[in-house]
């Protein structure tokens, strides 16, 4: 019985020590993140404490992708510049999904499916699909991607935007403060052939920036 109590005390003390160590580590980071960098020399210390940092996210919006389809398909590409501003010393992560569980671009009677590609395995845009790409991210390649209107299928590859019920896809990240704001250009492409009814199709993407 004594041994059993001893083991229980030992286990509880272990839990307590582990918790204390965890909190200590957090506190250590907090101290390291003090605003007075001169105390610590010229290290890359940030301007705010963990947990008190703010993060700001803005984007320019995407110009309407106008497509005059051809029998074999015509494609348009436009970009959205997303800006993240944070003093978090550990940086940030920028992800995105569509706003709904349906990641197709919805028209009145029909829709344009999102690309079958992923950031790890992007693909050339297929007709009657839409997708995104970020130059230099994951397996997208460096590009450079350029704006086009009702042109041929772009040589660069695209990925589908995950729906809100799927895991978000990361479009940018940083392990250091983003001040001044860091811009990420997210390119959107759409291809359509003559089978697609004349209409306006739309989808809403939601960007989420989180401090690390």
């Amino acid at each position, binding site marked *: 019985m004594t041994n059993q109590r001893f083991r229980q*005390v030992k286990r*509880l003390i272990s839990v307590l020590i582990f918790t204390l160590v965890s909190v200590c580590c957090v506190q250590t980071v907090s101290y390291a993140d003090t605003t007075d960098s001169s105390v610590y020399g010229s290290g890359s210390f940030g301007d705010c404490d963990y947990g008190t940092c703010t993060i700001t996210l803005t984007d320019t*919006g995407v110009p309407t992708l106008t497509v*005059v389809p051809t029998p074999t398909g015509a494609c*348009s590409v436009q970009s*959205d510049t997303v800006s993240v501003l944070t003093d978090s010393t550990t940086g940030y992560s920028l992800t995105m999904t569509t706003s709904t569980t349906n990641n197709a*671009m919805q028209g009145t009677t029909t829709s344009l499916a999102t690309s079958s590609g992923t950031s790890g395995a992007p693909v050339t845009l297929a007709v009657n699909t839409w997708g995104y790409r970020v130059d230099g991210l994951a397996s997208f390649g460096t590009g450079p991607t350029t704006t086009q209107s009702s042109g041929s299928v772009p040589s660069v590859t695209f990925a589908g935007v995950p729906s809100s019920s799927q895991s978000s896809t990361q479009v940018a990240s940083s392990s250091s403060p983003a001040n001044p704001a860091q811009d990420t250009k997210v390119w*959107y492409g759409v291809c359509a052939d003559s089978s697609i009814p004349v209409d*306006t199709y739309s*989808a809403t993407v939601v960007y989420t920036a989180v401090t690390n």
Partner: protein
Amino acid sequence: MWRYVKSKLYGAALILAAIGGAVSPAVAVAASEIQASICVDFMAPTITSPVSGFATQDDSVIVTGEGEASLPITIVDNGTPLAITTVSSSGDYAISIPLSVGENVIIAREVNACGTAKESGEVHLQRNAVPQAPTGGSTLNQESVGVASIASVGSAQDLSSSLNQPIPNNVSTASFNAPVIKQPLPDTVYTTNLVWVTGTAEPSSMVTIYINGMSVARLRASPTGSFSVTVELNKGRNTIQVEAEKDGKSALSQSTTVTYTPPKSAAKGTSPFAVATAIAAGLAIAMAVITSDVWVVKLIKARRLR
């Protein structure tokens, strides 16, 4: 005693864990709408009537032509957009515009949903002033000499937004004559969907045509108050109303209800009458080809038809 120590230890652990977990990262969210407008490529519209060189003393003219079906088309006179309507599903349009005295250079402009604009060639018209009757009077009335310039129905950019709008609620009729629809006549049943809407309104007032409560055309009445435009009817009942606006006042016409009943296609019919008609047609063709010089070959075709 042990229970007391155990509960205290667990409690402390939970508090410390809570303190550690209370520090959460900052989050920012932004949404962006991605829009794709799929549009058709289209031919530039044409003006088939009037033709260049046309001269008149009338204060208005009906412009007709062809364009891409179902797109809004604006008639521009001397650089000023004067009227807008929608090209019918068969690719035709017709709308009246007031004319200024002197030269009127008109073009038709169509814009698709992607913002691509295409224009017809210029048509040069001449409106001549009516010679003054030697009455001895010195007062010139506006109708006899026309007007030097015609006010626009809106900027070229916002004209298309004047279509597909509901009838405004604040139509006031104070000291303002309501427009009158002369054509179509009430309760008319049409088998074609393109009809003329003509009528009278306050001279030079802005006229908007509504079908089933939604605007389908906007034009300026002539200096004598006439207006004409072809509109496309919806299948079934169509309630047509006209609103006229001038000098901050507006008035709504009485409504005129007409019906569009598309003709039934004989080819699709399976009724005994339709079958009999088809057989008769087949026999007629056979008879016709048998009597022709090359009847052997055509007879085979006739059999196929039957």
